[in-house]
């Protein structure tokens, strides 16, 4: 079981984490952040693998992973 915390204010909305999450638990948020971009959000789910794929591809180091 895993969990991620996304720094939404730093997120630039590149969506790479969405592309690489094997479970599809990350999606675009509706509310813009202070940068004016749509950040991503994580749906907490006990099936999150804590695999860190999202954090490894994030160019802006926005994601912390817990397992």
């Amino acid at each position, binding site marked *: 079981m895993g969990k991620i915390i996304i720094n939404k204010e730093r997120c630039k909305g590149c969506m790479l984490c969405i592309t690489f999450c094997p479970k599809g638990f990350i999606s675009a948020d509706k509310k813009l952040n202070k940068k004016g971009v749509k950040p991503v959000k994580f749906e907490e789910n006990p099936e999150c693998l804590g695999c860190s794929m999202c954090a490894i591809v994030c*160019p802006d180091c926005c*994601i912390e992973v817990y397992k």
Partner: protein
Amino acid sequence: MKKIFSHPKSLRNISTHYCSGCGHGIAHRLIAEVVDELGIRERVIGICPVGCAVVAYDYWDFDCSEAAHGRGLAVATAIKRVRPENIVFTYQGDGDLAAIGTNETIHAANRGENLTVIFINNAVYGMTGGQMAPTTLLGQKTATTPEGRTSLMQGWPLKISEMLAMLPGVKYVERASLDSPGGIIKSKKAIKQAFENQINKVGFSLVELLSACPTYWNMPANQSLEWIKNSMIKEFPLGKIK
């Protein structure tokens, strides 16, 4: 639950100026992780380039210097010779390392300076507006090749890593790609090797990283990673060159 992934200590916990999806951010993080893991934060000196990564010193939390465009390896040579106990690396784009700085790059390599080079190949000049770089692919449209690069007009993509690998002073050259989690993990391994080589006085070590520039490739970030995989790697094959 235990925290298993977070910000490396050697990377400041701030937002960067890089475009959304830019590979520079990943490369910065990997270097910071390697510096932390090798415990060399107090010894390392980074030489920042001219190019989009010009203010990398604002992002790394260790000592850095700045070089004039292309002159990273000349500055690094001087610092390493005066302070051999420090671990000195350059971080250079394709325009910096393989166009304006070709001279400094080749001669530092040929002298076999005990330095580490992180070479970011994004196939364009990012900072100045997406002009053609030496590594631009044939057919690739850029600000200065609006119809696409042709060998007749602009020559072929320059394989500077393979060229440098021919020199006896060069001890390690590897090309890796920031196009996927697997590629990023391999890139980090190569970066670590290049730093370890300097610590062990092996000699000149270079890692070329294929890195996305979604802005001047005119593609969304995920398509940029596909383009690295489907087009760039064909021209710039991955793996250990030397």
